[in-house]
């Protein structure tokens, strides 16, 4: 049942999605996006000094990006004397691992149909062939639960990093991050409960499939149309989960130096930093999947574009459809990544107690109300 070819494909998918997409984009955004794009917003030039092979042009600062990575590899790995050596060593891995593991359930495209595709009621139906899962590592039926479970684990990375270093600043940072992540997990789960009711599934790919429908023949039935409130709640909660601005109190550099990773250097620091950026991209991917149609391109179905005339208006070969969907998904993901970056460069950060107030006293009641109202509507219709 599980042939060597399947296994090879699985390995290939893992390799391409984590090593080929999540980590490189994470790295690129860490070093390139955060420096060059922020420079664009802040009327600066940004770093442009690194040169390669005597080329005078700064080559869009790409050598800088490489140089930064190399620097991180070769820096001295300093560890405080009284640090708990074991946990100090493990903590960065515990931070990075969940961030990468999360990508297992993200569908980059629909199941690949080896037969012919027919479109029925805005759904692709595969006739005379089987559906191959080529575009996500695992097509889990409990996809969303998996996401919740793994993102809960990522608390440990920050908490242990804070505890293990025996630094007071790191301790405060670790405490803050633990409190914050646990608080916002509640909102995160509840805000998505409404969408679960509407889609009737936890499988992320099926969610994306359902979003191909058209409301009234013209409006794509994306999650945000059904659940606009949940989108905002979920986006905010996820941003708090990844500890990025304006929720970056665990690492508020002006108060507690660098928070829980104050005493990490070299690649350990890099791993923690990277885990945050990979998390940022994951937020983009998840929001795109649940609320913005995932890999769906509006009006595009298995055999081409349908503009509501009942038939195919512009025929597109199936391979073309797959490619377009892949591009659409990545574009949507990057859009939300950039949105988070813009927020980061614009907004000041919250205070610790204000984050707690926002989470427990504002977001949580709204998400419960949203859930109840959604449930009533789903029950009524």
């Amino acid at each position, binding site marked *: 049942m599980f042939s060597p070819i399947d296994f090879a494909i699985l390995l290939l998918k893992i390799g391409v999605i984590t090593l080929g997409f999540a980590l490189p984009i994470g790295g690129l955004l860490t070093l390139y996006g955060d420096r060059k794009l*922020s420079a664009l*917003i*802040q*009327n*600066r030039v940004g770093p442009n000094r690194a040169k390669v092979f005597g080329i005078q042009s700064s080559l869009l600062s790409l050598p800088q990006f490489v140089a930064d990575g190399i620097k991180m590899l070769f820096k001295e790995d300093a560890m405080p004397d009284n640090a708990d050596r074991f946990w100090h060593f493990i903590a960065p891995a515990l931070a990075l691992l969940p961030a990468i593991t999360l990508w297992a359930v993200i569908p980059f495209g629909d199941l690949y149909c080896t037969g012919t595709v027919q479109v029925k009621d805005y759904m692709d139906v595969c006739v005379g062939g089987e559906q191959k899962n080529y575009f996500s590592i695992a097509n889990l039926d409990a996809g969303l639960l998996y996401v919740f479970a793994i993102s809960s684990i990522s608390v440990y990375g920050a908490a242990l990093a804070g505890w293990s270093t025996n630094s*007071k*600043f790191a301790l*405060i940072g670790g405490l803050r991050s633990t409190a914050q992540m646990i608080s916002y997990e509640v909102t995160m789960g509840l805000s998505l409960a409404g969408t679960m009711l509407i889609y009737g599934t936890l499988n992320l790919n099926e969610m994306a499939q359902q979003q191909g429908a058209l409301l009234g023949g013209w409006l794509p039935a994306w999650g945000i149309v059904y659940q606009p409130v949940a989108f905002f709640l979920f986006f905010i909660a996820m941003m708090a989960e990844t500890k990025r*601005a*304006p929720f*970056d*109190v665990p690492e*508020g*550099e*002006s*108060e*507690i*130096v660098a928070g829980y990773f104050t005493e990490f250097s070299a690649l350990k620091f890099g791993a923690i930093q990277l885990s945050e950026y990979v998390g940022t991209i994951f937020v983009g991917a998840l929001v795109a999947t649940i609320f913005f149609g995932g890999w769906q391109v509006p009006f595009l179905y298995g055999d081409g574009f349908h503009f509501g005339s009942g038939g195919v208006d512009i025929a597109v070969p199936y391979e073309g459809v797959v490619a377009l969907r892949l591009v659409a998904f990545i574009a949507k993901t990057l859009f939300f990544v950039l949105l988070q970056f813009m927020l980061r*460069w*614009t*907004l*000041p*950060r*919250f*205070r*610790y*107690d*204000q984050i707690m107030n926002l989470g427990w006293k504002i977001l949580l009641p709204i998400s419960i109300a949203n859930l109840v109202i959604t449930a009533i509507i789903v029950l009524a219709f």
Partner: protein
Amino acid sequence: MNRAIADALAAAPERGVQEDVMVLNMGPSHPAMHGTVRMVLTLDGETVIKCDPEIGYLHRGFEKQCENATWSQVFPYTDRLNYCSPLLNNFGYALAVEKMLGIKATDRCNYIRTILGEMARLADHFTSLGAGALELGAMSAFLYAVEARDHIWDLVEEVTGARLTVSFARIGGLKEDLPDNFAERWEATEPRLWDVIKKLDQLSTKNRIFMDRMMNTGVIGADEAVSLGFTGPVLRSTGVAYDIRKDSPYFAYDRVDFEVPVGTNGDNFDRYLVRLEEMKQSISIIRQCLKGLPGGPLNVDDPHIMLPPKELVYNSIEGMINHFKLIFEGIQVPAGEVYSYTEAANGELGFYIVSNGTGKPYKLRVRPPCFYFMGGIDRMIEGGMLSDIIPTFDTINMIGGEVDR
């Protein structure tokens, strides 16, 4: 109010082992401590029970150094007092020595000092507001503010030849007149400053997160502020409209029309708003001064005070001797003592000088505005949260060069 919480926490009956407070050493090497202050904090969770600020990490013996320099040689030292607005320190010191000598600067000199002083105030406020936003995490606002400060420094550079260590004032006048195209340059710069002020306003003033961070944090009452010797924007934010430019005018401040903005709550947000409004007033003052800039001589006409023109120094024996005496022996300031005070960007900058009738100060003592803030900062911080230290420390705009001297 903060104080009451702190007292209550400190007086809490026997804490168990699990409830032990944490002593956190913040600084002197800490991103928020501006590099020069150490705070020993006693924390109960995130709440600051006790704050023990320790200054002196930037002490360089300014006051003692001055005793070994002639009156004119003190100017470069004053540049390094408040290094965000060196021109104001220059002028404050010049005014003190002039008071001692019993001379009055010319009209034109007073106007130019007012213009340049307000420019320095603008630069200082831009730095303060920008750094405040930066340390709260809004990095873009900081870079916009620094860009505006650079526009001002470009102008300062054109006038004085230096951006930071200007040493532009002279006893009885200035190093030189404004350049011919200064008014045009200012015309070109002013809209850009308005742009940035507007941008800061949009980014911060109505920003919910910014308001939450700033409002009701670092509160100090009017009575307490007065008794602690607070001055400047920090005092005005409590509602006390004390501004030396208005209450005891010097330079050309009695001939320009401006308002003294005051706050009501004495919290960080009010201090921010007071600074923002003061920048608008400063621009208005500069515009009025440029319009009414009188002609006439720049420096006082007194060979005992001003250096002779270079032609006389090189071509006549009297000029040569005059130059020699002024450089080597210094301006002869009559014996006596004087306290002179001006409104620097952060508050009252006072110079108390004692002369024994020679060319060097017998004693020079500076009353820096920030020193008094550091004396009362524990009252603003205690009872608040750890994160509140950041905006509080920013809005009082502590400058190490001034506090430690």
